């Protein structure tokens, strides 16, 4: 006996008006439709995971309120660009904490990619007829936009706390966050292509996130590092996260740091290229036996 609820009803090719777009628009529209869908999906997932949002906000706030309060007395900061005057430690670490949100989210997004792959929804994305590099960029852009939203929420809280920037600073910050988010997300994407199992991810977090964060200017200025060790100073200078934090720092004060922008862009392109290479079907990194 056949299940009556599964009887065929109507034709698969029921009439609807197929919109056939030709030329350049026909090539671009499907890509934009997919971009919008991927951003919408990631946003909805984010809204449904409120704990993720709270965690992302609590982490930098704890650093600001607890860590910075303790360090204020211990750490003296000299007047270096973009600062025009003496700066308290709380004010100094805000750009680094913005970077921290992007860094943790970039890595968390790559963790969700590994998770997606384990669950299978990544397969759905990768079997779309759109170019794979475009699909990866869409995914990256979606997670970056969510991270940026979190940074602005964090800055709203810091404003209530008493650390405020000029309207121009908040505005100029946006492209800086976009570049930084794409760079860090690209790194996460490249890592996710190399991670076969979710269990391996914790190790990567420890070996990537913490060194990147602590060996940067997020918590201490470069000159302070140089005082303790030239080697540490050099490592910090080479760390792309340092450049990203400086880009954010200058942007928050309405200034432009060309060197930081250049290095962040270069790192973004390199990481993105690595992830496209990592997800190349001929490399077989996405293959998983089920």
């Amino acid at each position, binding site marked *: 006996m056949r299940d009556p609820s*599964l009887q065929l*009803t109507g034709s698969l*090719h029921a009439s609807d008006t197929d919109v056939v777009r030709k030329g350049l628009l026909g090539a671009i529209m499907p890509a934009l439709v*997919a971009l919008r869908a991927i951003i919408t999906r990631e946003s909805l997932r984010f809204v449904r995971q409120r704990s993720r949002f709270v965690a992302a906000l609590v982490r930098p706030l704890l650093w600001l309120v607890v860590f910075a309060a303790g360090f204020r007395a211990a750490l003296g900061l000299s007047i270096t660009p973009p600062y025009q005057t003496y700066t308290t430690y709380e004010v100094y670490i805000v750009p680094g904490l913005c970077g921290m949100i992007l860094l943790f989210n970039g890595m968390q997004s790559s963790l969700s990619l590994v998770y997606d792959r384990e669950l299978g929804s990544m397969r759905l994305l990768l079997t*779309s007829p759109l170019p794979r590099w475009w699909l990866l960029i869409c995914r990256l852009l979606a997670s970056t936009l969510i991270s940026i939203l979190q940074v602005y929420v964090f800055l709203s809280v810091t404003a209530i706390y008493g650390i405020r920037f000029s309207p121009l600073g908040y505005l100029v910050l946006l492209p800086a966050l976009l570049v930084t988010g794409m760079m860090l997300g690209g790194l996460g994407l490249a890592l996710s292509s190399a991670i076969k199992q979710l269990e391996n991810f914790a190790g990567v977090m420890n070996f990537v996130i913490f060194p990147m964060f602590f060996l940067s200017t997020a918590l201490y200025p470069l000159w302070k590092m140089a005082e303790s060790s030239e080697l540490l100073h050099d490592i910090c200078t080479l760390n792309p996260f340092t450049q990203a934090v400086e880009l954010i720092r200058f942007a928050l004060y309405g200034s432009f740091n060309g060197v930081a922008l250049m290095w962040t862009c270069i790192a973004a392109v390199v990481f993105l290229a690595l992830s496209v290479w990592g997800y190349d*079907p001929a490399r077989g990194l996405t293959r998983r*036996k089920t």
Partner: protein
Amino acid sequence: MTGLSVQNLSYAYGTKQALDDVSFHVPSGAFCALLGPNGAGKSTLFGLLTRLFTSPQGRIEIAGQDMARNPRNALKNIGVVFQQPTLDLDLSVQLNLTYFAALHGLSGKLARSRADAALDRLNMRDRSKETVRDLNGGHRRRLEIARCLIHRPKVLLLDEPTVGLDTTTRRAITDYVHDLSVNDGLTVLWATHLTDEVQNSDQLVILHKGLVLETGTCSTIRGAIPLNDHFLNRTGTDA
């Protein structure tokens, strides 16, 4: 050549040969069962057919499109249901469908009407607002089948789609996909290790340890003996 064609396809995970010179052809509009025990290489074959990964050896043609030369055109013609569920459990039924439609470039009214039509065909329209997490296993599978039809593919690939379902639901879904082949002219490749899902008139490919043991219609291959016995004889594995 339309339908689905696989020629001299080989694939290895390191030193372990998963597929060895696999060749078969499924004519347009035919239902072909890919029968093989666990570990036969079915999921590897599906990975290659959906371009999750590629092999330097062999050729795949989907509805006349060469997978290596025109991957995007080949993928446009494929509707796939993987063995692992690929639904977003936290999103509604409708959002899952419109998300998939968007990945195939369909948006707005067109995407919604296709999603509604797909749900109508499986009598699930009234559940379109529910989150997938609230659906049972059978309905989730139905939804995945509905979803893979949205972009009107010519070839359906289903990798053990009835795993974990009860007998009645399993039968219903098997019959439904057979109907899609007969009534709508879809070419179907249905991977399974369960011989009761294969009908006499179906095309059959028996895969074992990465090798194609037999191809032909089910009735010709099994002859007078039950398919399960024949399968057991050929593979030494109880289906």
